[in-house]
């Protein structure tokens, strides 16, 4: 699904923040991406999300060499990837339903064709009663679940989550982890970037540990 071969990344003329990364993300796999602050977790997520291009090495996603893709092709490929941002990035002028259905809307689907699907997902993440609420009135946990719902509504093959439990209490963190596990069981490959050791200890999964820009894999 995703293949990194000797990938390096530097910003401008600065030092390499990621060095010689070689790994694969297989279909239906689950992995934690961890490491100390500044180790390059967010940069690696950006590479996975096609938001950055490597300064060296080869990245293939879903069989495509990302270096050769046009902007529109990147956008199309990105529809197969869901991302949960640490700061949620919900649109404040849209209610929860509209935020969650946004990926389907930009695909050009008519609202009638996905309404039931979105409502079902909102119920599943416990936001059925908050469908009409605007993000500013949602709690941190509700925002997090809305962001997750938006990331998975288009049934991505790869789900990336950046510190998804960083803003929630341990109880909700556990529930969110269960949500990711269930999504993985349904066929979505999951990469969770976190430095929450307690969270990782709750589920036996592959760990990608970044340290000084290098990746150490613990299967």
């Amino acid at each position, binding site marked *: 699904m995703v293949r990194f071969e000797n990938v390096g990344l530097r910003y401008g003329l600065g030092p390499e923040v990621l060095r010689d990364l070689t790994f694969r993300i297989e279909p239906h796999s689950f992995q934690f991406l961890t490491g100390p602050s500044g180790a390059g977790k967010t940069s690696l997520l950006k590479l996975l999300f096609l938001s950055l291009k490597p300064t060296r090495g080869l990245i293939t996603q879903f069989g495509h060499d990302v270096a050769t893709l046009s902007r529109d092709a990147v956008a199309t490929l990105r529809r197969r990837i869901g991302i949960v941002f640490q700061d949620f*990035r919900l649109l404040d002028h849209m209610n929860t339903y509209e935020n969650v259905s946004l990926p389907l809307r930009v695909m050009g689907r008519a609202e009638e064709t996905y*309404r039931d699907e979105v409502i079902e997902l909102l119920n599943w993440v416990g936001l059925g009663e908050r469908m009409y609420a605007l993000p500013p009135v949602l709690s941190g946990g509700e925002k997090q679940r809305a962001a997750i719902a938006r990331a998975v509504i288009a049934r991505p093959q790869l789900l990336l989550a950046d510190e998804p439990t960083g803003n929630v209490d341990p109880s909700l963190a556990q529930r969110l982890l269960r949500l990711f596990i269930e999504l993985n069981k349904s066929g979505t490959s999951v990469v969770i970037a976190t430095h929450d050791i307690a969270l990782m200890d709750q589920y036996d999964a592959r760990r990608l540990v970044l340290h000084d820009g290098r990746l150490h894999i613990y299967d």
Partner: protein
Amino acid sequence: MRAVWSCMTGACTSMIEVKVTKMTEDERVEMTPPPRSGGGFLPRFDTSLVPRNSISGRALVAVVAIMTFLASLTTGGVILVNQAANEWQADVSREVTIQLIPAAGRNVDALVDKAVSVARAYPGIGDVRAYSKDESSKLLEPWLGAGLKLDELPVPRLIVVKIASGATPDIPQLQRILAEQVPGATLDDHRGWIDRMRAMSGTAVVAGLAILAMMFVATILSVTFATRGAMATNKTVIEVLHFVGAKNGFIASNFQRHFLLLGLQGGAIGGGGAIILFALAALMSRWFAGTAGGAQTQALFGSFAIGWGGYFAVLVQVVLIAAVTAYTSRHTVNRTLEMID
């Protein structure tokens, strides 16, 4: 097949209790959304992707309205000055004056009649009117005062010769004939006055056009910066749309459409205000046409009507300014997307 996140029970908030069916890759691709199956009434969820009625959006409409209004006033002003200058020139150049200076031994009245008949007989001349002695004397009253006995003074006699509409008579030839046939007659074609008038009106029009050009530049710059300001508040929207897989053209089109509407809204307010103002000015000019003040104003500024051409110019400005707004928003979106990438 139902979506994978089918809620098993009412206790949806407990994710641990959710039972999940394993899906194959093929099932995922083939899975189609379930049809809408009755249920209660739900409103349409069709909020614009670009936030409407934001403070920055309203500020942009206000800036566009004000700048369009000012630009329209400037355009109207230039049109009025140009029209007035053309009218002055046309009025003056359609008239020449024959002057007869009395001298000892000259029968001035006979010479006046002779000059009138020569002028009338000349091709291209429309109307000829000789000022009587009293009328000529009255012309001097503003300078010499009333009640003076002017009989002893050699007050020149004037003959106003109007050129026929559309005709272009050979004035120097008429001047020569008068000199030959009417002793003491001189012909003034107001050439010096017309030249000065032309220079003055030309300067006024050029100055107006220069002000209009500066106004346009100021309008475009203000609208551009106001649009960029409004766009800055939408950076998150652009990023989110980008990250959920929207193509650049889709994002840019949405913003361009939104800002074109804002530009047209502001332009319609400003341009509409200017059009109403000009229409009112033309109406009032017609109302006061018979009064002394009205005549004075009309002499200076013409009829105060910018005409259909003027109204069309204002409408073109409205569309142009809206187009600038739309183009700037598209350009800003593309730059933002380039920065994200």
